[in-house]
């Protein structure tokens, strides 16, 4: 490369001036905004060319989002490649402040509060539109527009509309948790949506707040609308989503597509709308149509059916010479969950479709969720419906159920909710007001912070907030292209882990100063010596913290004793370390060597008032456990204090194992009424449970006579490591001790 450069410099000629303008435009149109900015500085001729409308559009192309956060105000944000601009008008003000967010800067990146509510939501001030206009006055082309937690009324769409016109490309248009004002004129809104020319239109809402006339709102998105919407996307696959049905007891508007609509629906890459009800026979026609024409394999479709899909539909609507199909029925009577999985494969090709049909208990609708893919199947027994016999299939109960759950005291609700994940939280929150109030109690007591590094290049996010529902996000700007919305469920892979940028520490210090966190999650980040030094002060507060370290990369440079010191210096009551196989350190024995008796004794000693928990979940898939240590007799009383303990590198003598059970039964604080003055020898029955089952697992139970206190344990040989393992559970506590 150097040689070539030198050759040119010898000539000392401005070679570019020989290229015609059209050629230069052809070259420059391949460049991104950042490079075009640099090109502008090369020469005046180049600067003039960059001013060409086509290139200006590239410079201005990006993602626009308009949102309202309760603590900062109303904003628009424009993101294009490495550029991120933010204009914010604080609440109560008319004028705002604009800022350019550069690499390494930290800025709000998500909702800080619950979704906007009537009376709280405010209209966007004039200065927002003026500044947006200033930003886009030369040329613009938005790839995507996100409206997030704002009030949508007639005035808003009238103000926004001019900014959505003029782009040559169709846009991705998303409404997230917006509040549709009751004054919104739906025909106008419908026209606005179509005129914006989106190829991707998604309206999502997790909460029940909808326009007063929800049925009329839903009726916008009928066959006529979707036909026009798809027609606008002549050269692209359209996507449409109406995810607003969470918490609804019934879907207030339905429409049944005509047969003529099937080829149109077939073109959609993603389609989610529970208000569309398809006839089962049309559904199967649609599936075969899509399987035959699909050029893309990943799709997401979800909609309702007018009736349950049954065998006769397959017999009458699916050409068995061309399609093989199979049904797997899942019936979990205990959890009242029944659904069917179907697999349809075009004979002799890898083209396939998989969908599952379920009965949505709340809305009492049959729904299907479908995905298409290409995969050569094994010699499956197609057309052999009923891998689980049809006779076992239970009729879905139609009768009204009694609301037992609401009758439970609030404490019980909280106890139950604490065990659930966030997705389930979001669902349950919509069930009733009473549950919503119980959630609020959890919110008050549970704060968590999470650091993660995702795979979209060097980008870090901080989440802070309540343990349930919405987390607030702060993103660190980086050079890489950033998606408009950071998905809570984005698939993270470890490839992007890089050292923490310096800017994050300031933000962390502020966050830890403002909040008292109960839970700290470190996810998919790189831990090096600097990280340990910087992070240590955050974990040494007066409050015990639950620390979860998951899929992190422990840098080879980190001294294991330093890592051990870091953990012990923290004020922890719960420590869980889990790692994927790909992220294991090369010196596994050294790493496991940290977590032995000395460490655990010191760890437990720091939890004087609370029971400690320790989980080392890194052994999955290992054929050999590279480090073992044997617990001494002195360690048994310490171990008995743990409410949860899991480590496959700890070995325990059988006699000490029984000692552990007895100590635990004796001392567990939940069972203080237990009479400890009598000898164990005659009082414990040892009996086998579940042996009549054909399960490999055999659980034994030791029960204290005359009490409900017991210990259940399971001995088994790990098939990977060939080690004898034991898993224990003490009754009533819902916690397990897990060791070998």
């Amino acid at each position, binding site marked *: 490369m150097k040689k*070539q*450069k030198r*050759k*040119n*410099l010898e*000539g*000392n*000629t*401005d*070679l*570019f001036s*020989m*290229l*015609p303008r*059209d*050629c230069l435009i*052809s*070259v*420059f*149109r*391949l*460049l*991104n*905004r950042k*490079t075009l*900015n*640099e*090109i*502008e*500085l*090369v*020469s*005046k001729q*180049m*600067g003039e060319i960059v001013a060409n409308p086509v290139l200006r559009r*590239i*410079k201005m*192309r990006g993602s626009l989002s308009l949102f309202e956060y309760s603590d900062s105000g109303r904003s628009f944000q424009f993101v*294009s*490649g490495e*550029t991120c*601009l933010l204009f914010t008008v604080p609440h109560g003000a008319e004028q705002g402040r*604009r800022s*350019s967010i550069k690499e390494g800067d930290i800025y709000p990146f998500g909702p800080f509060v619950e979704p906007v509510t009537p009376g709280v939501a405010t209209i966007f001030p004039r200065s927002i539109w003026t500044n947006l206009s200033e*930003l886009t006055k*030369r040329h613009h082309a938005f790839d995507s527009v996100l409206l997030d937690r704002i009030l949508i009324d007639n005035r808003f769409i009238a103000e926004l509309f001019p900014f959505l016109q003029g782009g040559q490309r169709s846009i991705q248009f998303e409404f997230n948790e917006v509040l549709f004002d009751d004054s919104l004129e739906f025909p106008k809104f419908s026209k606005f949506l179509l005129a914006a020319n989106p190829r991707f239109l998604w309206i999502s809402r997790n909460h029940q707040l909808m326009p007063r006339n929800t049925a009329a709102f839903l009726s916008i998105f009928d066959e006529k609308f979707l036909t026009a919407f798809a027609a606008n996307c002549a050269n692209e696959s359209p996507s449409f989503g109406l995810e607003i049905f969470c918490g609804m007891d019934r879907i207030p508007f339905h429409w049944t597509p005509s047969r003529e609509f099937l080829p149109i629906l077939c073109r959609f890459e993603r389609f989610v709308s529970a208000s569309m009800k398809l006839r089962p026979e049309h559904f199967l026609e649609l599936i075969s149509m899509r399987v035959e024409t699909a050029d893309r394999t990943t799709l997401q479709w979800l909609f309702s059916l007018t009736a349950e899909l049954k065998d006769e539909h397959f017999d009458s609507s699916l050409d068995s010479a061309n399609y093989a199909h199979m049904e797997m029925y899942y019936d979990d009577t205990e959890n009242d969950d029944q659904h069917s999985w179907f697999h349809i494969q075009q004979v002799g090709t890898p083209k396939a479709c998989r969908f599952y049909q379920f009965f949505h208990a709340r809305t009492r609708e049959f729904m299907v969720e479908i995905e298409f893919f290409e995969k050569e199947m094994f010699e499956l027994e197609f057309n052999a419906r009923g891998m689980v016999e049809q006779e076992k299939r239970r009729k879905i109960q139609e009768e009204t159920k009694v609301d037992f759950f609401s009758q439970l005291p609030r404490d019980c609700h909280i106890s139950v909710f604490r065990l659930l994940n966030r997705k389930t939280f979001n669902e349950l929150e919509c069930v009733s007001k009473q549950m919503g109030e119980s959630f609020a109690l959890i919110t008050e007591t549970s704060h968590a912070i999470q650091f993660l590094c995702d795979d979209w290049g060097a980008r870090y996010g901080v989440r802070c907030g309540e343990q349930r529902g919405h987390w607030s996000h702060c993103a660190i700007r980086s050079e890489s*292209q950033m998606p408009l919305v950071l998905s809570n469920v984005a698939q993270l892979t470890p490839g992007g882990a890089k050292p923490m940028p310096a800017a994050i520490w300031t933000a962390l210090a502020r966050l830890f100063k403002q909040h008292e966190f109960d839970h700290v999650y470190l996810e998919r980040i790189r831990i090096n010596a600097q990280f340990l030094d910087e992070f240590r002060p955050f974990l040494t507060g007066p409050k015990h913290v639950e620390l979860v370290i998951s899929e992190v990369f422990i840098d080879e440079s980190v001294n294991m004793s330093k890592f051990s010191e870091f953990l012990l210096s923290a004020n922890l009551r719960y420590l869980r370390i889990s790692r994927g196989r790909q992220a294991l350190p090369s010196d596994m024995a050294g790493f496991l060597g940290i977590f032995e008796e000395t460490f655990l004794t010191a760890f437990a000693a720091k939890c004087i008032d609370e029971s400690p928990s320790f989980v080392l979940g890194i052994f999955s898939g290992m054929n050999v456990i590279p480090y073992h240590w044997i617990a001494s007799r002195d360690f048994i009383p310490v171990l008995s204090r743990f409410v949860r303990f899991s480590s496959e590198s700890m070995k325990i003598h059988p006699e000490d194992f029984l000692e552990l059970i007895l100590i635990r039964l004796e001392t567990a604080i939940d069972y203080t009424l237990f009479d400890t003055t009598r000898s164990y020898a005659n009082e414990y029955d040892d009996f086998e449970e579940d042996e009549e089952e054909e399960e490999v697992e055999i659980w034994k139970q030791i029960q204290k006579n005359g009490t409900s206190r017991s210990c259940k344990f399971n001995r088994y040989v790990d098939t990977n490591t060939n080690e004898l393992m034991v898993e224990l559970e003490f009754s009533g506590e819902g916690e397990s001790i897990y060791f070998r």
Partner: protein
Amino acid sequence: MVLITLVSSDEQNFPVERELLKQSGTIETLIVNMNLDDEDTDAAAMPIPLPNVKGDVLEKVIQWMEHHKGDPVKEGDNEDNNAEIVVPQWDDDFFKPAMYGSKHLELTVAASYLDIKNLLTLSCKAISNTFKGKTGPQIREEWGVPNEFTPEEEEAIRKENEWSE
């Protein structure tokens, strides 16, 4: 095999297989206009003059067309301006010796004049790749462009871009 003769600006003759010339919109139009496809026309006796292309450049163009014989015309395959610009290995090797020199630019001009879309696209990609990650002054230095800006002017442009971005 029908051969058609192309004549460069410096009067060099290049007999080229008819099929290859379908890649060039300009030559294709000339062939149609001159009825060279007619069985009655003696194509060999009617050379096509290309006054805007020098012999050494035309030779490179023909070499490229020979390699890409039968390739479909690709258009608009780079929607994402932030994505990596990919030039296939053979073409990369083809452009490399002339990179940063007038030959590469002449080849680009010829591709544009002859309306060979794939060559123009690839050539532009190869040039644009030389810009990525470089600053204005670096580009200036590498391509021998004189600096016309005063430091104040340069600063003003940078400032403008900060918010126009």
